[in-house]
């Protein structure tokens, strides 16, 4: 325990109060220093580095607006739809709070996707930042659960049937599936019981987990320090006297004013959508969701909200034909590994056995189940990124030029998958989304191979920075 300090009786009231506080909570000042005034961040952050703090801003918007919505919303299948319209019409400023929350949900995914993309291109997940990345992936996963459950609450047709479709996916899991789906719904169809438990999860259980993970994400980041667009470790060149990184700059005030500036830009765009296009052209608030849920009337076309559509596309792409493609890919991979991999004979046998087992399993279960596996795997594979990437440099800046085209191809197909997932199924669209699924999975699964290839550029000792 720190020593109890006395202060001169002539000191000002402010000083006395500060001293009183410091004697009782001495670590508060240290906390502030460690995370704000003496947290050294690289000074060469660019545009892509705004999205972390923006995600935090959106989280706060969602929590605060959520608190006010819960004051007027009724989690009851007979009243939920009505209570949302009540908020939109009769609650003073209810429409504003509701639109902030619905636009905020989409904004959350926009900033999180851009934040993840930043991590991807600058290798922010590489050693020693694996935990930062893993906590981040967990946040993404939990955020998807949060958004999915929140989307049921307005109790419109898309809320209802979207939930029905997604919960039914769990029933495709062999052996435990049907019981698991029943456990999630609390009923044999999506019903009042489902609405009540989703409400509980959406407003308290999942947000608690989310906040814990966000805290872990930021603490883990501040332990190892931020990466930067050059992928250079700023802690390796320190000032001899102060011991502070030469290329670092205190987070407060430099990055607080920096982030404040971009927060204003973000809020401008956010408000432009909120006040002038709150439906987001039918993508943020789906038109069908203005019809109250009707368990007896299935809409002709059920589309999830835009932020789920890339993964939904991958689910739909996994047809019986696609399973044969997976079998062919596994067979080719196994043959290549055995012939060209340079493994010992024991390992070769193991590879052959594993391939045969994999092929057997692929045919033993329904394609629908493998669709669920592909969809879940597409998210879970992100967790392994730190170990999939074997490139000798972190940042895209010092990778071979053709790597940029690989990333562009990946992003291109991710967007195409997103678009196709919002559309009704079609033969041509399905073919494109199958190609997209293979590109998405191939990007990650083949990364240990392709990320090492090519001529890498020399990485500078210090970050590249030109004064503003």
């Amino acid at each position, binding site marked *: 325990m720190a020593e109890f300090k006395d202060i001169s009786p002539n000191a000002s009231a402010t000083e006395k109060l500060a001293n009183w506080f410091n004697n009782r909570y001495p670590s508060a000042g240290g906390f502030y220093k460690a995370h704000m005034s003496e947290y050294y961040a690289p000074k060469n952050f660019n545009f892509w580095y705004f999205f972390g703090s923006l995600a935090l801003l959106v989280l706060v918007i969602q929590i605060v607006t959520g608190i006010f919505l819960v004051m007027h919303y009724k989690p009851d299948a007979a009243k939920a739809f*009505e209570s949302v319209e009540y908020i939109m019409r009769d609650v003073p400023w209810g429409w504003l709070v509701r639109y902030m929350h619905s636009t905020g949900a989409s904004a959350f995914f926009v900033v999180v996707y851009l934040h993840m993309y930043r991590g991807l291109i600058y290798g922010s997940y590489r050693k020693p930042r694996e935990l930062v990345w893993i906590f981040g992936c967990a946040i993404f996963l939990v955020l998807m659960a949060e958004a999915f459950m929140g989307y049921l609450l307005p109790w419109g047709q898309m809320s209802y049937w979207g939930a029905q479709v997604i919960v039914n996916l769990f029933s495709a899991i062999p052996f435990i599936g049907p019981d698991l789906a029943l456990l999630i719904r609390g009923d044999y169809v999506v019903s009042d019981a489902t609405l009540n438990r989703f409400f509980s999860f959406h407003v308290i259980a999942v947000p608690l987990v989310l906040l814990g993970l966000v805290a872990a994400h930021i603490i883990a980041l501040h332990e190892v320090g931020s990466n930067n667009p050059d992928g250079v470790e700023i802690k390796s060149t320190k000032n001899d006297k102060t011991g502070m990184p030469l290329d670092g700059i205190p987070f407060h005030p430099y990055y607080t004013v920096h982030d404040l500036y971009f927060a204003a830009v973000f809020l401008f765009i956010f408000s432009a959508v909120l006040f002038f296009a709150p439906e987001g052209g039918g993508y943020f608030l789906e038109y069908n969701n203005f019809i109250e849920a009707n368990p007896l009337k299935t809409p002709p076309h059920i589309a999830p909200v835009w932020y789920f559509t890339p993964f939904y596309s991958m689910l739909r792409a996994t047809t019986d034909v696609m399973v044969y493609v997976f079998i062919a890919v596994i067979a080719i991979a196994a043959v290549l590994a055995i012939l060209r991999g340079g493994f010992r004979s024991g390992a070769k046998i193991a590879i052959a056995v594993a391939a045969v087992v994999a092929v057997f399993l692929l045919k033993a279960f329904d394609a629908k189940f493998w669709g669920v596996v592909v969809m879940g795997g597409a998210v879970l594979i992100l967790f392994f990124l730190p170990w999939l990437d074997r490139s000798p440099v972190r940042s895209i800046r010092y990778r071979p030029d053709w790597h940029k085209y690989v990333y562009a191809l990946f992003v291109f197909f991710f967007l195409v998958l997103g678009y196709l997932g919002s559309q009704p199924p079609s033969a041509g669209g399905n073919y494109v989304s199958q190609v997209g699924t293979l590109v998405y999975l191939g990007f990650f699964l083949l990364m240990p191979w392709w990320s090492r290839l090519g001529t890498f550029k020399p990485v500078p000792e210090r970050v590249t920075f030109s*004064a503003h």
Partner: protein
Amino acid sequence: MKKLLISLFVACGFALSALPASANEGGYPWDKFPEEKMTDMAALQNGARIFVNYCLNCHSAQYMRYNRLHDIGLTDDQIKKNLLFATEKVGDTMKTTLDPKQAKDFFGATPPDLSVIARSRAEIGKGSGADYLFTLWRTFYRDDSKPTGWNNLAFPDIAMPHALWQLQGERRAVFTEVKDEHHPGKTEHRFERFEQVTPGAMSEIEYKEAVGDLVAYLQWMGEPAQGTRLRIGVGVLLFLGLLIVFTWRLNAAYWKNVT
């Protein structure tokens, strides 16, 4: 970095051009609803009058309160005198007296609640809900093969009879059989034009205006706060625009000595 951005933009452009057109398209194309009616109080009030006189008999607008009509310039007195018929109070929501069960027997379908009808009927790639309603109300025609004797181009086999027929008059639709280019031997039943059978109380232009007013009202009723929203939005954006300038200069002031 620049190369990466450029290749991303090129990729996105390619993606947009290469993708198949939205599959939502199809059916009778919708006309554009005259949006300028949304700021025309007289039009909105006339729309409210038509709505209460013609629609509210069968349809409810159960989330909409009569006294919310203040927002389109009506006073409590005006609402009481012109729009309330039976025992309703100005603070009540717009309910219909038609029993939903009976309605189902009469029409084969329960008339849907109209509070948010204009929002729910929009389709991505096709048009707004107002466009749909504006088209729906001008494409009714006589069809003796239907139980009600009416059919509609925007909503084929619609259960609702033409509630505004006295205003528009009766019309019949002329179809021609066109050879289907994609399926030889098959013909396509294609709409050609309408023919007036009996005259209505309104001329065609008057009727179009009246329907425009009604749809404006339905669109407004879908979100009564929309006028406020747009007005406040302008102020919010002006404020944030100013905030961007200040925070931009604040940021620059802090960073000017960082080398």
